């Protein structure tokens, strides 16, 4: 029987060695999700769908916005084509279930990164880098004369259910001892409809979202944001916890958009940059970043030129920001915290090395 025991101990060892050998041989990270997306040929991306600047359906039926561009960049990186995205509208209370059940591959829906959402004992998500640093604000009609949070004591406030804003509002109002009536709605549309009908004196959400929604009001100038910022809201794309390979692919695609801005690579000059990298072997950093040399793509289970494909389809992070929510858009938001780290902001890509 000794030989049997010996076999029992050596067999798994041999098998695992064989596996390691295979992995080293060029298979890269074996991500189930990534394999699934490649065989399906489209990326299922969960977005809000009703938030100007972030994800919005155009009159011609196409989607646009900052969140939408992240989906497109990931589709371009994984499938080589930024248009191969199947957008799914998810509301704030069903988004995590949609991700957990596999109905969507990627959640790019102005979702705040929090401990309880990240932890496997909580919602168990895996977060990519933050794509928009936001804070919670409160909007009131100018005519109401309300100028501070304290004046909202005893008044009804509209809020979307299942959001961090709902909890932050409860916390802040308790802190300042101001009892209030929270009116909760399942969707943003209902929340803002009730606010516009005058059912609530104020509506609370991320400041960027308030600014975005205000652009679609009948009279945007009649509404103003209170000076208080209630919380930190780092809006971050997320994937399921169980697939680190897929999470890495998404994470580094987002970083690539940020790194591209830092390197001055834009949608317009990407081809020129690529030609330059191919022509000059001494530009090692650029060559590695654009996949001319090295194996960054293979390490992530992506094509070697995933950065080129992503930037070509939506531009770098700065371009995405300006086009959708920045000064070039209706929202006219300042870059603020969302500037590159070199300009005093928080957008910082770790090195592509």
């Amino acid at each position: 029987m000794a030989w049997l025991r010996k076999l029992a101990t050596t067999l798994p060892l041999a098998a695992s060695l064989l596996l390691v050998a295979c992995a080293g041989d060029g298979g890269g990270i074996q991500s189930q999700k990534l394999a699934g997306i490649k065989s399906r040929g489209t990326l299922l991306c969960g977005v809000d769908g009703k938030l100007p600047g972030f994800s919005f359906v155009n009159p011609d039926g196409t989607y646009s916005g900052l969140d939408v561009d992240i989906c497109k960049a990931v589709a371009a990186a994984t499938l080589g084509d930024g248009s191969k995205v199947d957008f799914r509208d998810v509301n704030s209370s069903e988004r995590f279930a949609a991700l957990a059940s596999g109905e969507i591959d990627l959640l790019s829906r102005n979702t705040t990164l929090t401990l309880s959402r990240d932890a496997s004992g909580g919602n168990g998500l895996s977060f990519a880098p933050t794509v928009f640093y936001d804070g919670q604000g409160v909007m009131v009609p100018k005519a109401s004369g309300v100028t501070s949070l304290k004046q909202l004591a005893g008044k009804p406030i509209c809020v979307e259910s299942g959001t961090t804003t709902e909890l932050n509002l409860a916390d802040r109002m308790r802190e300042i001892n101001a009892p209030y009536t929270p009116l909760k709605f399942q969707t943003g549309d209902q929340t803002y409809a009730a606010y516009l009908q005058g059912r609530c004196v104020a509506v609370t959400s991320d400041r960027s979202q308030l600014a975005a929604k205000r652009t679609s009001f009948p009279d945007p100038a009649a509404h103003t944001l209170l000076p208080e910022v209630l919380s930190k809201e780092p809006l971050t794309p997320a994937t399921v916890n169980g697939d680190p390979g897929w999470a890495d692919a998404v994470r580094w695609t987002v970083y690539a958009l940020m790194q591209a801005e830092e390197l001055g690579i834009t949608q317009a000059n990407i081809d020129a940059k690529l030609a330059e990298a191919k022509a000059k072997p001494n530009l090692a950093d650029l060559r590695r970043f654009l996949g001319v040399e090295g194996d960054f793509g293979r390490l992530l289970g992506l094509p070697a030129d995933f950065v080129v494909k992503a930037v070509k389809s939506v531009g770098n992070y700065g371009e995405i920001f300006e086009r959708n929510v920045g000064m070039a858009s209706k929202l006219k938001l300042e870059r603020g915290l969302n500037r590159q780290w070199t300009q005093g902001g928080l957008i910082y890509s770790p090195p592509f090395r």
Partner: protein
Amino acid sequence: MAAAGPALTSAVTPWWRNRRLIPWLVQAAFGLALLVLVAFLVSNLVRNLTNAGLLLSWRWLGNPAGFDISETLLPFDAGLPYWRALLAGLVNTLRVVLAGLVGATLLGTFVGVAAFSSNGLLRRLARVYVELIRNIPLLLQLVFWYFVVFLALPGGRDALQLPGLVLAKSGLYLGWFSDPLHLVWMGPHLEGTVWHAPLRITVEFGALLTGLVVYTAAFIAEVVRGGVASVSNGQWEAARSLGFTPLQTLRRIVLPQALRVIIPGLNSQYISLAKNSSLAVACGYTDLYSVAETTLNQTGRAVEVVLLLLGSYLVIDLLISALMNGVNRLVQIRER
């Protein structure tokens, strides 16, 4: 010898042709298969939840909820645990279901009986009402009642004011004795732009209740109409020849007989009403489903929360059913 014959044949009947044994065996086999299936599903659930690190746990029920609820009968604030929030939601659900049952029964009975009115206008109105309401989805009706009807009410100073009663955008305010012993009357009063009164029905509750009552009453009206129609015309004629007025006939002769047909149909309408109340979130009312949804989102405990929801609605509906079955036994014909 004649008696021995069948005994002999039954002794040699093989078991697979035994007409008493076979049904038992089939039942047992089916029961066993069902048991195996359930065991497989449960073990599959437990295994997958364990793998995902989400094995059923109820400890989160004791954690502070951290969110507020707009209207509650039980005192509640964000510092209280999740189970208190869910309980507050359950009480809110029961409140609207009970009020809805009473309202829908009254309106439904009225419309159902109106279908037999000698007044042609009333008769036709009843038909139009039933056909219009029961063919439009309830969710749509709730959104209509809330956003189009109730939120269009004037608010603040412009609210509709009657002595002791104010109907504003935020709800219906009623005056009442603030000190019942000394009969100190307190009417609705305005503080800034917000109305205050001893008794208040919020516009969210009002919209949900109106929606549920109007919708369910259309179905109840049909049940009542069917019940009344099942009583033969001869009963009406006999009552009239005995000198009963139409109202007396209805109350003393027709309805008692019609109830036998009406009650079972009513039972399912009541159950639908209780289940439909979970659409409350469409008009901003914080019912059990709304609280559960927020809880699910904050805790990530989907399986536990959904189990609680399933259990709660099941218990509510079984209670309604048991109650109605009791009523049904009371109105059945007792044969002597």
